[in-house]
């Protein structure tokens, strides 16, 4: 029998620190037409948006809770505060952001990252953006990067109205409807025709208020022949009450355009992460998803791509790490609905300390998707015998001119590999962490260096105390 040793979990204080609640305004907990109306008034919505919110609430009330994924019994909407406005307006300089909030983002490394390697940053604190800035040279190219509220009222109002929740409709599922009713914050990006944004834009979402929900909306339109890398990060301190994240990301990738959307998700482990992400790709366009899921108590997360134009492409590279108390149901969906489209999906998942990781996917090819190609590869690693790892991949192919491949593997770390590394001087813990980092290498090499380092740090954090 293998000898087991135990190492204490290390302090997660990098992410798990709390600010005093100094919010300027928050609605009552729960979800009623009055609360939705208050949010709409607070945000000075145009009339169409106010109606949209109330209609979404009706859909929410009529839509059943999903019965096919992890349990969300611990989430009671009557206890969730859906709008918390921080005690500041959005600023374009970090020096103008109140010290406590600024310090939060300093500790998370956001201003430093902006200085070093980003073309623009949006920082959301609870329900509103507190900082937004884009480099002058990027703005000079015609790139629009602003908060959703400004976009909704400014010169891009028509564009927002044309695209807002058209890809992810409130009727999609219960939490898309919830998002439609109470959304707040998020970013709007427009990259004009032929413009290539050389360095990434980033939005960072921080939820500080206990028992609150964050419902940011990200709308990105990359026009013909344009190119963008967008990075999304998120974190929250841990509380004893449930928090909720039901954001929505809608990505429109134009003809021959390319969009890379990278996410490192590190919500606290009391978070219900019921997020929806979807991309629509036109002829010759390409969407690249890079996704790392480390946090949350429960996750439902399946970025979806609709390959609408001839020759559209999708690549998905993802990793999910489910530790103690976590049930992470993650995966990907792709619909091939035009000829010559292709998709490549490569995912890894790791379960330890009783964590549950489920990879769930679907690859669909319609009759119109002649000469479609798709390859799916998913690998799962079980680090102990109290955890769980499931794979539930589906394929629905309705054209004969298709080439669809799928492979999946579930297994554990080989004792031989651990022994090999230990014989070269590593401790067992370091050896196992090293093997897991190698397992996650496909994802980290797709990220900018700073984020790859963060991801490897997260893996190292999670691997502490993993021996046994």
């Amino acid at each position, binding site marked *: 029998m293998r000898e087991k040793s135990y190492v204490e979990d290390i302090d997660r204080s990098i992410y798990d620190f709390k600010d005093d609640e100094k919010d300027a305004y928050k609605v009552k907990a729960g979800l009623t037409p009055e609360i939705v109306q208050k949010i709409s008034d607070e945000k000075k919505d145009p009339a169409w948006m106010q109606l949209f919110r109330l209609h979404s609430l009706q859909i929410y009330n009529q839509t059943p809770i999903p019965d096919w994924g992890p349990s969300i019994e611990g989430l009671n909407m009557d206890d969730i505060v859906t709008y918390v406005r921080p005690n500041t307006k959005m600023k374009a300089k970090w020096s103008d952001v109140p010290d406590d909030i600024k310090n939060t983002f300093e500790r998370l490394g956001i201003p430093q990252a902006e200085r070093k390697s980003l073309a623009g940053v949006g920082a959301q604190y609870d329900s509103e953006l507190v900082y937004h800035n884009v480099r002058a040279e990027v703005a000079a190219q015609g790139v629009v990067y602003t908060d959703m509220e400004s976009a909704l009222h400014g010169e891009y109002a028509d564009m927002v109205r044309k695209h807002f929740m058209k890809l992810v409709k409130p009727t999609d599922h219960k939490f898309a409807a919830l998002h439609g009713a109470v959304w707040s914050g998020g970013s709007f990006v427009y990259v004009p025709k032929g413009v290539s944004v050389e360095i990434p834009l980033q939005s960072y979402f921080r939820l500080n208020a206990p028992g609150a929900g964050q419902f940011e909306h990200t709308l990105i339109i990359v026009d013909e022949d344009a190119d963008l890398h967008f990075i999304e990060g998120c974190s929250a301190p841990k509380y004893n009450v449930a928090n909720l994240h039901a954001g929505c990301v809608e990505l429109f990738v134009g003809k021959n355009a390319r969009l890379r959307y990278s996410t490192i998700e590190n919500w606290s482990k009391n978070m219900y992460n019921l997020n929806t992400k979807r991309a629509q790709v036109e002829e010759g366009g390409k969407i690249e998803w890079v996704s790392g899921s480390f946090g949350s108590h429960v996750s439902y997360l399946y970025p979806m791509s609709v390959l609408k134009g001839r020759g559209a492409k999708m690549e998905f590279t993802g990793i999910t790490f489910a530790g103690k108390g976590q049930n992470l149901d993650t995966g990907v969906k792709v619909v091939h609905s035009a000829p010559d489209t292709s998709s490549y999906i490569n995912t890894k998942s790791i379960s330890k300390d009783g964590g549950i990781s489920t990879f769930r996917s679907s690859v669909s090819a319609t009759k119109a998707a002649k000469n479609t190609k798709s390859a799916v590869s998913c690998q799962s690693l079980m680090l102990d015998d109290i955890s769980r790892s499931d*794979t539930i991949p589906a394929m629905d192919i309705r054209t004969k001119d298709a080439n669809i491949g799928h492979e999946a593997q579930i297994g554990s770390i080989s004792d031989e590999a651990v022994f090999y590394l230990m014989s070269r001087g590593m401790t067992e813990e370091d050896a196992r962490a090293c093997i897991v980092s190698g397992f996650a290498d496909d994802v980290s090499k797709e990220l900018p260096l700073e984020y790859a380092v963060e991801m490897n740090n997260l893996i190292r954090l999670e691997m502490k105390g993993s021996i046994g």
Partner: protein
Amino acid sequence: MEEQNSMKINQLPSKTWYWLGLNDTKVKWAAGAPCEICAEELSADDEITGFPEAMNTGAGKETDVLFAPEQTKNWSVSAKEGQTKQVTLSIGQGKEKVSSGKIRAAAEEGASLTVFEVFEPAQAAGQLAVRTELYAKKDSRIRLVQVMMRGEGQELLNDVGCICEKNGALDLLQVVVGKGDVYDGIWTELQKDHASLQAEIGYLLQNQQKFDVNLNVRHFGKVTESTIQADGTLMDAAEKIFRGTIDFVRGSADSVGAETEQVLLLGDDVVNKTIPVIFCAEENVQGSHGAAIGELDEETLFYFGARGMDRTQAENTMARAKLEAKIQKIGDADIEQKVKTQLAEVLDRDNR
């Protein structure tokens, strides 16, 4: 007109998105009369003792209503300790439009039992439901060969359940070469150490034929092994659903499960749905699945082209060859010939 029961069959052990239409299959099935079961080698069925009182099956509990004793032909076979036994069952719909049968097969310790089940075409449209329950005791082996040759408008519900004790094995071979719709549920429990399942399914579907499969294997024992291989061809507007689940239950250490599927798509209106599931609650196991779905690759087409065959000829040759590879494994010359004749008849349409 018989009263029809609406039921959900072939339920996926864990649900996924409803819009995929894979969580279950809804059918309407009437409760009918006993079907015909003719045994070629034996004049009477065997008494079985110690058979499990309850057994899970692939089609699921809702189909129990179809197998009530008064409307079901019951038949059983048993191989005694250390015995090697073989039986061939010809199963027909009978004179009724709707009929049912239930077969129990047990292999005692160290025994080897082979059961051939040939589902014959009927004279008229109808529904035939057959449940086969298998019990492989310690160190025994059951080989179940099912040949499904139902005619047009003739539906078949084939429901299989199996329990394997220590070092017990089930070898399952299914060949679908008829014209009628087939609903196929298989549930195997590898309850004790070193138990195993080897399952092979071959099919050729045409016109608007449907083949709906739900294959589950649950690994309870240590060092258990499962291999699942499903290969087939869809022509015209044929539709196939394949649900294949390997479930490593906690405690099934050192077990291995592998599942592969290859589907050749040859029709403009085909629908192919596949969901190969692995559940894993045990650390020291190896589970894998792989699927290849689509048309013939360029290399194969080039190979045939170099031998003077055009694309259509190449496709039909490959479709035939895929199924013949399974037919050759049946292991009974008479049945193999019967299936080949049926295959020729199926493919003869439009000079395929």
